[in-house]
C-alpha cells in the first residue's frame, strides 16, 4: 500500500487529488443529480483503487539512503552476521575497504526466532542467544585486531540492517553468511534484497566455518 502522507510533497499531491475527486462528485451531483454523483463517486473510487494497486506493483522498491555520520576521514562499516562473523578474509576485506580511512565497525546479530515464537512475542530466548553470538563475534574480531562494537538486531535481517543504518549511518555493509546450500539467508535472497533496499555498497562474504575458509564476492557496484 502506498502511503500518501510519507512526505509533504506526497501529502500535497494527495490534497490536489482530493480536491479533484470531490469537485467531480459535487459537480456531477449538482449538475445532473444525486445518482450521477454516486456513479462518479463509484467510478473514481474504483479507478483510484486500481491505480494504487498497479502503481504498487510497478513501483521499484524504495532505497534507504543512510545519512552520513562522522568525519570525512572515517569509514563506517556495518557487518551483519548471524554466527559467521570473523576470520582472516573478513579482516582483510575490512582493511581493504577502509584503506586510507579510520574505520568504525558495527556488528549486528539478528535475534533469529521461529515464526510461532515471533508471533507470540516470545523473543527473550532468541535475544539471549543472539547476544552470546554477538559477544563471541566481537571477541573474534578483536582477536583479529578490529575493535568493533555491536548490538542484537531484529530477527528479520533486512530490518536489522535498516535499524542499524539509522543508528550507525554506515558507508558500507558487509553481509557474512554460510556457503550456498547451508545458508538460510542466501536461500531467502537476503543479499540481493539488501542491495535493492539500501543505497550503500554491499559486500557479501561467504564464511565456511567448518573449513575456516572464506571467499569474498565483490559488490555489484561501487558507489563510494
Amino acid at each position: 500500500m502506498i502511503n500518501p502522507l510519507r512526505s509533504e510533497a506526497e501529502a500535497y499531491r494527495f490534497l490536489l487529488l482530493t480536491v479533484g475527486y470531490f469537485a467531480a462528485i459535487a459537480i456531477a451531483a449538482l449538475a445532473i443529480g444525486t445518482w450521477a454523483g454516486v456513479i462518479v463517486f463509484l467510478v473514481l473510487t474504483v479507478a483510484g483503487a486500481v491505480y494504487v494497486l498497479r502503481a504498487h506493483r510497478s513501483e521499484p522498491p524504495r532505497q534507504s539512503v543512510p545519512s552520513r555520520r562522522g568525519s570525512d576521514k572515517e569509514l563506517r562499516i556495518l557487518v551483519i552476521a548471524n554466527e559467521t562473523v570473523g576470520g582472516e578474509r573478513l579482516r582483510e576485506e575490512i582493511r581493504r575497504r577502509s584503506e586510507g580511512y579510520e574505520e568504525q565497525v558495527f556488528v549486528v546479530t539478528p535475534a533469529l526466532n521461529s515464526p510461532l515464537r515471533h508471533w507470540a512475542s516470545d523473543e527473550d530466548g532468541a535475544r539471549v542467544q543472539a547476544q552470546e553470538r554477538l559477544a563471541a563475534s566481537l571477541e573474534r574480531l578483536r582477536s583479529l585486531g578490529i575493535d568493533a562494537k555491536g548490538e542484537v538486531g531484529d530477527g528479520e535481517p533486512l530490518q536489522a540492517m535498516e535499524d542499524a543504518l539509522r543508528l550507525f549511518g554506515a558507508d558500507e555493509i558487509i553481509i557474512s553468511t554460510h556457503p550456498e546450500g547451508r545458508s538460510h539467508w542466501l536461500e531467502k535472497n537476503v543479499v540481493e534484497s539488501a542491495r535493492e533496499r539500501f543505497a550503500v555498497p554491499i559486500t557479501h562474504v561467504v564464511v565456511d566455518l567448518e573449513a575456516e575458509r572464506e571467499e569474498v564476492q565483490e559488490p555489484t557496484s561501487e558507489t563510494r
Partner: protein
Amino acid sequence: MTVHAEAHHGPPIANQSSRVDSATLGMLLFIASEIMLFGSFFTIYFFVRVVNGAPEWPPAPFHLPVFVAGVNTIILVTSSFTIHWALQSIKRGNRAGLQAGLVLTIALGLTFLLTQAREYSRIGFSPQDGAFGSTFYGLTGLHGAHVFVGLTILTFAAIRAFRGHFTPEEHHGVEISGIYWHFVDVMWIVVYTTVYIL
C-alpha cells in the same frame, strides 16, 4: 586500526524498527487517530441525515452559507499551496521564500478561522438547535480546532524560520507541519463537500 568509542549522553537510544523515521511515523499515527476521530463525527452526521429522511438537506428552516464557505475553502486550499512553496523554497536554500510562505500560510489560516467565526455568528442557529445543529457545529468546530492546532504548529515553525533554523538538508519542522496542514485541508474538503454541497 583504531576505533574511537562514541560517547553517548542521556537516555538510551530508542530502538528503531521502521522504514519511516520516528518523527514522521509519529505524525502518521497521529493523523490516523485523527481520521478515526473525524470518522466518528461523520458517522453521526450521516446517521442523522439518513434517519431524518427529510426530502431536502439541510432540513428546513436551516440554511447554510455555501458561497461564503466556498470562498473559505479556496482560502484554505491556497494555504496548502503556500506551505508547499515554503518547503520547496527551503529545499532550494531560499530562506526568504520559506519565511514568506509560512507567514502567508498562517495569514490564510487565520482568515479561514475568522471567516468561520463570522459565519457562526450569522448563521442563525446554534448547537442546541436539534441534531442537525449539533452535528454541523460538531464537525465544523472539530475541524476549526484542528486549524487552530495547525496554526500553532506553523507559528512555531515560522518563529524558528525567522531565527535562522532550517537548512536545505534539515527542514523536518516544516515538513512535518506541512503534512499536518495538508491533512487539515483534506479534511475540510471532505467536510465542505458532504455538509455544504451534497
